[in-house]
């Protein structure tokens, strides 16, 4: 029994038309040109301008003469005592929500990949949370969590778990967790779809081979499925981490950053500084620091999920 070779040797070794590195580069250029036009056509100027603004002490949206501060805005971030609490909230939010979405996402994807009856029905259900706009999702959960007339308290009361209403959004740490729950409820669907697509690429005869070898279901999952899913997991991790660092809408609707700043995440804090306080220089610096942080985290994921020798494309 042999394992099919799925090496990733680059295509360039072949001859034929457009051969060699130059042909390849040209082809790549052609393929990327539309993307570059679409992405940078409109935003190149704003992206560049925002970076430039982060180097000045800008405190108004209007053009004018502002003092150049170089990296002053960036260092100010680290001297800002409120920032650390916000950063802590963000790290917690990112780790917990991404982790939960991943675990639940893989579990549900495996479930949907199993021989269920009427699979289309179960798969369609998973679409529902994804389809609900975040704005509505936030309002819905705010409504459910309401301490006075919310359904969650009502449910707990109905099944006799507790009769005193709990203020779900009343204390900072609890509120953060409840927001995470609402976010996970909605976004696990996406993880499910990604992992499901990844599962489809695993040839089924691998499982047959494992079974013949006498491997148990759990061991097959751990040693066969999971490593093969590593690329999909990496992709999803990076995406969800980016989204978690950018999370804004649900906090805007559910808690507005409270109580006691407990649900203020970095992106929301950036909004407050840039728009409510009109400190655009500072806000822009915060935004670029977010990019740096996310990039760093992405690198960590990719390193961790790398297996064996990196034999892939350059």
């Amino acid at each position, binding site marked *: 029994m042999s394992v099919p070779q799925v090496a990733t040797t680059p295509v360039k070794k072949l001859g*034929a038309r457009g051969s060699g590195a130059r042909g390849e580069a040209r082809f790549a250029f052609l393929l990327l040109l539309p993307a570059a036009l679409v992405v940078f056509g409109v935003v190149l100027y704003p992206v560049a301008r925002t970076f430039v603004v982060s180097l000045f002490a800008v405190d108004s949206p209007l053009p004018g003469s502002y003092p150049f501060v170089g990296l002053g805005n960036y260092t100010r971030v680290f001297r800002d005592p409120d920032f650390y609490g916000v950063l802590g909230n963000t790290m917690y939010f990112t780790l917990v929500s991404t982790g939960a979405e991943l675990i639940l996402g893989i579990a549900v994807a495996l479930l949907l990949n199993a021989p269920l009856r009427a*699979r289309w029905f179960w798969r369609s259900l998973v679409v529902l949370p994804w389809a*609900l*706009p975040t704005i509505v999702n936030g309002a819905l959960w705010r409504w459910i969590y309401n301490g006075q007339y919310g359904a969650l308290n009502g449910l707990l009361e109905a099944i006799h778990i507790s009769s005193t209403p709990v203020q779900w959004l009343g204390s900072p740490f609890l509120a953060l967790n409840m927001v995470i729950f609402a976010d996970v409820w909605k976004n696990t669907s996406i993880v499910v779809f990604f992992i*499901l*697509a990844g599962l489809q690429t695993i040839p089924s005869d691998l499982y047959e081979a494992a079974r013949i070898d006498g491997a148990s279901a759990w061991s097959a999952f751990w040693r066969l499925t999971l490593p093969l899913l590593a690329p999909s997991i990496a992709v999803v991790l990076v995406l969800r981490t980016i989204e978690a660092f950018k999370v804004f809408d649900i906090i805007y609707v559910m808690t507005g950053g409270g109580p006691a700043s407990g649900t203020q995440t970095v992106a929301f804090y950036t909004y407050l500084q840039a728009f409510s306080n009109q400190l655009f220089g500072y806000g822009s610096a915060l935004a670029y620091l977010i990019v740096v942080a996310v990039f760093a985290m992405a690198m960590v994921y990719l390193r961790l999920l790398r297996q064996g020798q990196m034999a892939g494309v350059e």
Partner: protein
Amino acid sequence: MRHSRNYMIAIHIAAVVMAVVILLPFVWLVISSVSPATDLVSAHVHWWPAHPTLSRYKAIFSSSVGGGDNVAANFRLAMVNSLIVAGVTTAISLTVGALGGYAFARLRFRLRRTSLFTFLTVYMLPPIALVIPLYLALANLHLLDSKIGLILTYCSIVTPFCLWTMSNYYLSLPADLEEAARVDGCSRLGALVRIILPLSRPGLLTTAMFGFLLAWDEFLFALIFTSTSNAKTIPVAIAEFTGKFSSDFGLIAAGGVLAAGPPVILALLSQRFIVGGLTSGAVKG
């Protein structure tokens, strides 16, 4: 089949549990949308209203557009706007991303890494950072309060995402497929279009769904760049159901139920394609 009966029971129970967790909040959304306003504020939760009312849905569907406080009627327009904007954005971004992603996955060229990172930077930036200069840029192009303006803006966010996802998806496909095709005399482009893309359907669909969602859900840019029902999208319309102080959650719920409709339908229609996928046959040999 080969699976034991216990296994079948177990997975079906798990499926039911999953269904309950997904559906409960949704069911509550629907119930709230038909509950009269007084029920929504009462002390004890009314699991089902004594006098369910479809008045909110009626308001959304029947009232005339444009004049007065017809927030509900303008919702219909917002729905259309959202569908157009999200649909076109996804179509453009997916096409462009599928092509460009291939370059990152399979081709060698200078600046490969730098350019990928540059694209991703745009996606990593929180929207807040770009609002004002982007507003100015759109104003100069006379694209404020227009669907095209929103589409252009969203494409710049969704495309990097598509590039990233599709390039990773291509990496999961075996490389010998292109080799085989090119040995057979196919051009690079031909190999891409005729062999790789059809095999990438699950990846394309997943990317499309997530990309659609990014555009469908987007709130901040829509809020700032649109002002009339020419371009207002659903999140903005729903946000306007709340007044300075007042809000009717039932109306928001009704809006949410309706807003979830089209994406669900789209997802159902594309079910078949997600189910398909790489068969082991392509790998052997």
